[in-house]
């Protein structure tokens, strides 16, 4: 890395870590129903909403009702988005007169946005109207993020509370999250992005003359249907427009990742400058990082929050280092052709190598899935990093809310084994870990992995699924593995190269996204319900301290080993073979 890149990376990390405590404490206040500095403005809105919707803010829910509310709410969201996509041609704000989505694509897209995955089997600028983008997708960016955070908060309450079955009120948590956390930050950051040149308009797409017209042979068919080529000269180009900034901010902040344009954050109207680039990475990591602090405050052990954050940062740092190393090494096959230096294929020059890699690690370490580079074009080992981060289960630091609760489920498993090793029935934060907690934490941690193993296996013996690969062979295998990993773990980024808008991927992918989102969410709520009912065991010298370095390292090791043991065979047939083949000069 150059000095400039070191400076940029370190400065970024310092700024991000500086924001953790204040935002974490602020969110703790929000979810504990306390007054905040925003209350004078927002409390009236909040009260009005609750009155209109008939929400009694003191009426708490046990885990079953909380989970039912989550599912019901998300079902309603799915239906509304599915309807918007199917009726797009009838709805307003459609200057390009886009037709309705096919039902398979609408199903996949609606589930994708409800589950906070934001897998896009369509291209935003050539399929979605402004109405779809704003009323459909952007709204879901807010509420799917709020859903994840609400579940995480309920789980935190499970650890914090004693001898109660109540985990809070989903409607209150969801509303307060959107109102006090997501909306204000989105508002400010959208303005910052606009200042950098991100568009925000309702204009028709602009057609402009090319500075230098292009002439090429376009494949076509003659009268008899035989393939021939025709010489074509392109003199003008269509530039898509739209309300991008408002969606861009929440796309990153809510770790959604669904781009306004197909090129996502590599598109100059989504991410024009190095500064906007760093702002977007900042937004991706902000809430997942800060939630660890909220967790620490709410369970009354801030050190525990830092320990969890430490694990997340450690895994991210290792990933970044490997990715940076792999990309700096470049491709020996390209070097043979006389092009030396770092691997810049698929990268935006304006973000630089370190900036691009930081974005890749952030977007796959969280379940964001926005991309500023084509992961498909990374070196084989480099490409294994985003894939690996997703396969670990989205915990470093994971999606908003979901990252924290999955990490806590991992911590429960790590505590269980470590607790046994010191000769006690294991306890975490004063709560005994018993059969129910083990079942639920294991389901939370492994659900997505199981889906990936099953569906990627099915895909490899389904000719239609194999046909979607752009690069058959080990790289194609990585493309399929990445697709299911991304959907099941609700990341949503694509390895590119795979033509995903076919029924196989649309429908099985929808299934993967649903299972990957809601099975862990319900399981982890059940775990929280069981934890909340337990009494508190005060720590003693015989208790394993879970807020110190040895446990944090153990937790890191457990996460890495579980991930490696589950996916090493598949990875060895994908990126590892590809890497060895590249070194072998083929």
């Amino acid at each position, binding site marked *: 890395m150059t000095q400039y890149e070191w400076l940029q990376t370190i400065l970024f990390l310092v700024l991000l870590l500086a924001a953790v405590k204040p935002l974490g404490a602020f969110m703790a206040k929000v979810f504990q129903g306390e007054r905040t500095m925003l209350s004078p403005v927002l409390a009236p809105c909040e009260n009005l909403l609750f009155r209109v919707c008939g929400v009694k803010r003191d009426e708490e829910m046990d885990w079953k009702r909380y989970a039912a509310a989550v599912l019901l709410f998300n079902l309603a969201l799915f239906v509304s988005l599915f309807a918007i996509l199917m009726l797009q041609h009838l709805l307003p704000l459609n200057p390009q007169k886009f037709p309705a989505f096919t039902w398979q694509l609408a199903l996949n897209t609606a589930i994708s946005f409800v589950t906070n995955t934001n897998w896009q089997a369509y291209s935003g600028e050539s399929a979605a109207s402004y109405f779809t983008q704003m009323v459909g997708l952007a709204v879901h960016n807010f509420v799917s993020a709020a859903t994840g955070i609400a579940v995480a908060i309920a789980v935190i309450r499970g650890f914090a509370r004693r001898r109660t079955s109540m985990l809070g009120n989903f409607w209150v948590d969801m509303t307060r999250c959107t109102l006090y956390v997501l909306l204000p930050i989105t508002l400010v950051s959208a303005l910052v992005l606009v200042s950098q040149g991100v568009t925000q308009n309702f204009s028709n797409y602009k057609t402009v003359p090319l500075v230098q017209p292009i002439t090429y042979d376009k494949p076509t068919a003659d009268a008899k249907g035989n393939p021939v080529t025709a010489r074509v000269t392109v003199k003008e180009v269509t530039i898509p427009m739209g309300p991008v900034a408002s969606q861009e901010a929440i796309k990153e902040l809510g770790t959604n990742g669904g781009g306004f344009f197909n090129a996502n954050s590599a598109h100059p109207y989504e991410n024009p400058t190095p500064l906007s680039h760093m702002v977007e990475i900042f937004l991706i990591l902000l809430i997942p990082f800060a939630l660890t602090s909220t967790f620490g405050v709410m369970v009354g052990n801030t050190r525990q929050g830092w320990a969890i954050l430490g694990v997340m940062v450690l895994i991210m740092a290792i990933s970044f280092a490997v990715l940076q190393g792999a990309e700096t090494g470049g491709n020996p096959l390209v070097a043979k052709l006389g092009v030396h230096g770092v691997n810049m294929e698929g990268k935006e020059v304006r973000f630089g190598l370190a900036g691009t890699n930081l974005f890749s690690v952030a977007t796959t370490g969280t379940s964001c899935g926005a991309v500023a580079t084509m992961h498909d074009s990374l070196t084989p080992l480099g490409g294994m990093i985003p894939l690996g981060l997703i396969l670990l289960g989205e915990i470093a630091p994971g999606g908003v809310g979901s990252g924290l609760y999955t990490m806590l489920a991992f911590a429960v498993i790590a505590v*269980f*084994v*470590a*607790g*046994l*090793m*010191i*000769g*006690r*029935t294991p306890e975490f934060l*004063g709560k005994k*870990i*018993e*059969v129910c*907690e*083990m*079942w639920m934490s*294991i389901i939370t941690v*492994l659900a997505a*992995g*199981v889906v990936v*193993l*099953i569906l*990627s*296996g099915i895909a*490899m*013996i389904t000719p239609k699924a*194999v046909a979607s690969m752009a690069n*058959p*062979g*080990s790289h194609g*295998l990585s493309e399929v593995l990445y697709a299911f990993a991304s959907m099941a773990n609700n990341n949503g980024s694509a390895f590119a190269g795979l033509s995903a808008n076919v029924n196989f991927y649309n429908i099985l992918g929808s299934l993967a996204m649903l299972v990957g989102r809601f099975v862990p969410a319900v399981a982890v709520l059940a775990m929280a319900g069981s934890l909340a009912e337990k*009494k*508190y*065991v*005060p720590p*003693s*010298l*015989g*208790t*394993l*301290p879970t807020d110190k370095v*040895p446990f944090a390292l*153990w937790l890191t*090791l457990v996460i890495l*080993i579980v991930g*490696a*043991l*589950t996916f*090493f*065979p*598949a990875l*060895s*047939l994908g990126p*590892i*073979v590809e890497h*060895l*083949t590249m*070194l*072998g000069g083929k």
Partner: protein
Amino acid sequence: MSIHKPEPISIFDSRIMKPALIESFKKLDPRQLWRNPVMFCVEIASVITLATFVMSLTGANREPAWFTGLVSVWLWLTVIFSTFAEALAEGRGKARAASLRKTRTDVTAKRLAKPDFTSAFTTVGANQLRKDDFILVEAGELIAGDGDVVAGAALVNESAVTGESAPVVRESGGDRSAVTGGTTVIANSIIVRITANPGETFLDRMISLIEGAKRRKTPNEIALEVLLIALTLVFLLVCANISPLSMYSVKAAGQGSPVSLTVLTALFVCLAPTTIAALLPAIGIAGMDRLFQKNVIALSGRAIEAAGDVNVLLLDKTGTITLGNREAVAFVPVGGHSEQELAEAALMASLTDETPEGRSIVALAKQKHGLKGDALPPDAETIAFSAETRLSGVNTGGNRYRKGAADSTVAFVRTLGARAIPGELTDVVDRIARAGATPLVVSCDAEILGVVNLKDIIKGGIQERFQQLRSMGIKTVMITGDNPLTAAAIAAEAQVDDFLAQARPEDKLRLIKENQEAGYMVAMTGDGTNDAPALAQADVAVAMNTGTQPAREAANIIDLDSNPTKLLDIVEVGKQILMTRGNLTTFSISNDVAKYFAIIPAMLLSIYPQLEVLNIMHLATPLSAILSAVIFNAIIIPLLVPLALRGTKFRPMPAEKLLIHNLLIYGAGGIIAPFVGIKGIDLMIGMFA
């Protein structure tokens, strides 16, 4: 005490090995084996490879028949090693249970219509006795069932149950009324009220516990099993996933062959946490057995596990912290009386006192003041100690000699019209009490003569024991009937963390409840009937075998030696069981890393020769690599059996240090060991091939 511990039988003794070997094959029955789901899966895998082997004999298989055959053999061995480990752990208990059962031969009983020695009896079989029947047991007869002595007193030989050959006194009333079925009355006759129906007696329970027949999985065991099952399922899917991936890769690479069923099965068994799953039942059984070697019977595995979690230990002062008996060490006269006078009065007051304290006063008076007086005058009347007066003594020759606690003796002399109590009495009493001794005030009629200094003798080495407990995060609380001053002094000397003075049964119960409310796990020992409520409340309740029936019923652990210090051993065994489980789980999962490096390159090499790079152990051929991993996976089980049966060594140290220590041994060791082992086996296969 001369204890005859159960004869330690080595597990390598043929008396244990042979039946265990037979039993390990019986346990292969799927209806039994499914209780251990991981090993059940391995058995299915073994059946699959066996079927493949049979098919390969007809030439329908890609791999050579010898390879499939060997894999199948070693997979079967994996299962058998696991059932053998369990059978071995049960073996010692079974041997002991068999000897117990011998004592339960057809016993007859003399059933009485009413609890009266004159009442007529009918002779019935022991199995016809029901709760609340009365039976007469005379010298030389076996007691037919568990019960309480309701009339008479007898010497009872309990060696059948406790291994202790010295007979004990059992008498009606008080804390020594419980008798156990299967023990023998040596002298005198007693009437016993039966308290347990046939099949539910202490002996029955003991036999079934030792045999492991009624052994239920503990909650912690189930939670661990959940983890193991989940891992097994994931590895099953991993193996299932490799198959289509390899099929695709064959097509894409245009060479090689997809991974075969035999190799996939072998990989699955190697990855599944077989080491811990195979040894899990043995660990729990062996733990109970280790306690049994120490003459402690845990009525459930759960109780032992709870012992590992204990944060607060309530210990009776007498017998646990101090030697059972207090000893008189000095006479301190008051009010101008001479030491001789005081010694004489103390001697008189104690002559009929058979308690160890009373005898020590007599001994001191004789030894220090040369007094004689072995027999009392014939007119002497003994005043026994009672809870109301808290005094004891003798009336003789018109004099009333008394000794007792300061306040009760003072109250007594006041009733006799004492005008003045010597002014220095309070000082002397306080001084003795503050030093941790017991002041016993002696009076003759209305005169207070002085104070006997009864000193508690703290057991040797007990301070170190408490220090260890403290470093493990366990708080010790001394329970005593002494006054707070005495208690504080003894507590300080013995270095307990806290004490409860002048404790009544309800105080103990309250103390336990308070600690439990605060989230602590409480362990206590008890023997008296009045301990029963507290025992029932405590998480770990150890009853002395000498204790009463209610106390024994309220407890979940029974100490046949009636030695209260055993609580510390029980805590240790509880921790050992959990640690052994955790350590072997970590070891088992860490092993998978090396197995991957052996099997993955071997099974994919035909498709992608460049994967040879992953063969970091340089194993000779793909087949020998896979076979080596399978063999290592099987052989590690019997190698670890001694560890599972012994338990990992327990070291009292803070949790975090302990974790790092165990992670280095079983985590890092678990990663390194299979690399060495698999390479070694591969070299050996190379010599044969």
